[in-house]
């Protein structure tokens, strides 16, 4: 299911060879899915018990769950990034927004451990709802800031978001005085490491955001407009699309996703680390979007593709950890796999292989 073309189904099956396999292979999502499946297969054959799942403390436990759980923040970030990229933009401030929102939430909920007659007790500061709202509010403000710079002032997206990328992390550190804020408030942990019906809660959160976004693309003209602006902004403006508001919106949306992702990350490690939370997350998010088949030149995009891209990245990381690859070699392995995944998506490469065979 590609969200980008709600009419994808209506496209007449090409007359030539309409076999099922052919349809799968030519579907824009065929390749990312193929890459993911291949990666999972490699993991299956090299890591004993990779697909092993067991019920522990009333929830599912196993490698696959870990991957999903760990990929959740990245999936959220990639979701927001997809829309930004579809408008021909880029947002490199995602990691900083993650740090900022996590920090705000952690500080407001926060609390410190106080030694009370040798017994540690925990004090929380603010009702969690308010704290979460404030954290997301901070993220939205960041998005609005980026949006104004890009859509309002017409700065190039990469420099516009570079400003927040640098300053945002600084702000987060300013709030915490450079310390890691540890949270001692159980309900908060649920966001990032809780389980619902045996599955990680973060998965539901991602699914919810994904479904809302997908519905927004399907039920409103948002998807169409975003693509139009991404492909030909001049023509889109002449057709009467409010290009500036649309661009503003995607940056706000991206920041909101990043904010949520920040909550997840800080909830998961039960603390906010302003300096390290979400470091380089923007690069991974962009990579996820591209692996999912969306072009950085804007236009056609696929939300599902980006989700799959995020899963590819996380599966890869997880596999590297599980295989016992020495840390010095991590990067080489990662680069080679990213590279192979890209190659597998290149039709030119496929043609070359076919020509060889023929």
């Amino acid at each position, binding site marked *: 299911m590609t969200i980008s073309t709600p009419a994808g189904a209506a496209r*007449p099956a090409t007359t*030539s060879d309409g076999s099922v396999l052919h349809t799968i292979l030519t579907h824009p999502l065929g390749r990312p899915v193929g890459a993911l499946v291949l990666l999972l297969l490699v993991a299956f054959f090299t890591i004993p018990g990779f697909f092993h799942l067991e019920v522990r403390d009333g929830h599912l436990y196993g490698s696959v769950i870990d991957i999903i759980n760990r990929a959740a923040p990245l999936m959220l970030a990639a979701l927001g990034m997809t829309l930004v990229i579809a408008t021909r933009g880029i947002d490199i401030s995602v990691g900083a927004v993650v740090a900022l929102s996590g920090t705000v939430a952690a500080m407001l909920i926060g609390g410190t451990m106080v030694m009370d007659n040798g017994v540690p007790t925990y004090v929380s500061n603010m009702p969690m709802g308010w704290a979460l709202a404030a954290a997301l509010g901070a993220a939205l403000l960041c998005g609005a800031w980026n949006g104004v710079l890009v859509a309002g002032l017409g700065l190039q997206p990469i420099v516009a978001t570079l400003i927040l990328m640098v300053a945002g992390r600084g702000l987060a550190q300013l709030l915490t005085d450079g310390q890691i804020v540890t949270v001692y408030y159980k309900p908060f942990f649920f966001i990032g490491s809780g389980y619902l019906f045996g599955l990680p809660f973060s998965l539901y959160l991602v699914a919810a955001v994904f479904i809302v976004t997908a519905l927004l693309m399907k039920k409103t003209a948002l998807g169409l407009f975003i693509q139009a602006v991404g492909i030909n902004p001049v*023509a889109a403006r*002449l057709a009467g699309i409010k290009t500036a508001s649309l661009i503003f919106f995607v940056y706000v949306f991206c920041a909101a996703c990043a904010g949520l992702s920040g909550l997840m990350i800080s909830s998961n490690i039960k603390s906010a680390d302003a300096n390290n939370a979400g470091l380089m997350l923007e690069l991974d998010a962009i990579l996820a979007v591209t692996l999912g088949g969306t072009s950085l030149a804007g236009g056609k995009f696929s939300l599902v593709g980006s989700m799959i891209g995020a899963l590819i990245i996380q599966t890869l990381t997880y596999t590297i950890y599980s295989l016992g690859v020495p840390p010095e070699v991590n990067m080489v392995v990662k680069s080679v796999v990213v590279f192979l995944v890209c190659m597998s998506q290149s039709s030119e490469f496929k043609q070359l292989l076919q020509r060889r065979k023929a």
Partner: protein
Amino acid sequence: MNTQVNHDAAPVPLLELRGISKSFPGVKALSNVALRLYPGEVHTLMGQNGAGKSTLIKVLTGVYTPDSGEIMLDGKPIAPASTSDAQALGISTVYQEVNLCPNLSVAENIFIGRYPRRFGAIDWRSMQQQARALLQQLQIDIDVTAQLSAFPLAIQQMVAISRALNISARVLILDEPTSSLDEAEVNLLFSVLRRLREQGMAILFVTHFLDQTYAISDRITVMRNGEREGEYPCSELSRLALVNKMIGVAADTQALADEPLHDGAASFGPNVLEAEGLGRKGALAPMDFHIRQGELLGLAGLLGSGRTELARLLFGADKADTGSIRINGKARNFAVPRDAIAADIGFCSEDRKHEGAILSLSVRENIILALQARTGLLRAIPFKRQQALADEYVQALGIKTASIETPIGSLSGGNQQKALLARWLVTNPKMLILDEPTRGIDVRAKQEIMTYVTKLCRKGMAILFISSELPEVLRCSDRIVVMRDRKACGEYARGELDDTTVLQVIAGDAHATGEVAGVAT
């Protein structure tokens, strides 16, 4: 069907194509096409929109590889794999969509790839001088150091032609080079082509204008539905026969008729739009303007006379420095096109590649885009209704496409143009601004579209019609405003102008008349 032609000048064709076939997913664009091109001739390729003309040219110049067939140059088979191969073989081409770099200067666009050098470095001075000289040939006097994107489409077209002329080539291919040129420009181009023909160059020319075909061609190859219908000496094929062969059935003679499309006895409503002192520095001198309900107002003028600028100001695509606009008597301020659209105005731009088509979106999405933008972001037009609308206009305008879900970019030029026209017709505006709406559209389709538009007008739509093809303006307009040097310089009611007087008015003097008459011989 094929009429055998004996070309006595040169028995061996300079360039010959045999059995060329080419398919795209879902479309057979060319099947078993043959073409012969002799030195010292102008050979015109004619056919309806989507007949396969541009595809044939792209196969010939290495943009596409044919599925089958062979290409021979001087009797030897060639297989150009890229445009640079083709250029190296002496084939110089101007493609249908202007393919130049908007960010480079005019001079560079002409010379890139074969710069004059001095001590190994590019000799900018001499390049600019040569560029100026080349453009002078076509009587274009512009700043060659300025960026290409600063110029209107027509000028860009001329630059593309100059580029092709500059290559010391044996074969010159021009795919609809005249679609946005006015008659004086065409005339200049033709005199250059005639000179080249005398020098023995083989020229392949694509156009939808019958007048032009007959003014310059030696022979005509007609294409229909991806096949070669036949090859004819120009003198042996009457206009009516040509049209019949292109369409495949007996044409209604109206396609060729020059008589007015309607009797002119229409009744107009109140002013839909009035502008007072509307102007913009460097683009348009302040002018007054008004258009009434049910009126078809033609805008005539030479290249760069400011017609497009006026249209853009009326639509809010550019911001006016001076003046005011009233819609139905109420003052309005158009800061962005959206404001104009909200006031029920539509604008079909002349530059379909940059300002119109959203290339990788489907025909359906392109058609409903403006309507959706007006309806609003949140109220998505139901998918069924989108399909119905798209189907309706694909039918009504005869858009040739594999399906309404095909990306608009894979349609032929003329069909893209029709789809963009549909984009605005779908919004059913009170006033429609059409800037060169018939660019690249074939004879019959043009007739059909003009009839369609006139009908809309009779039903009460106000239409501002801009075309470089004067007869067309004369035929359908209720009133004509003539522009010169970015000023309105006259206004004429229907019937006050005819083919000869209008040229004098437009040019501001009498010099053009005689030369242009030559074109229509």
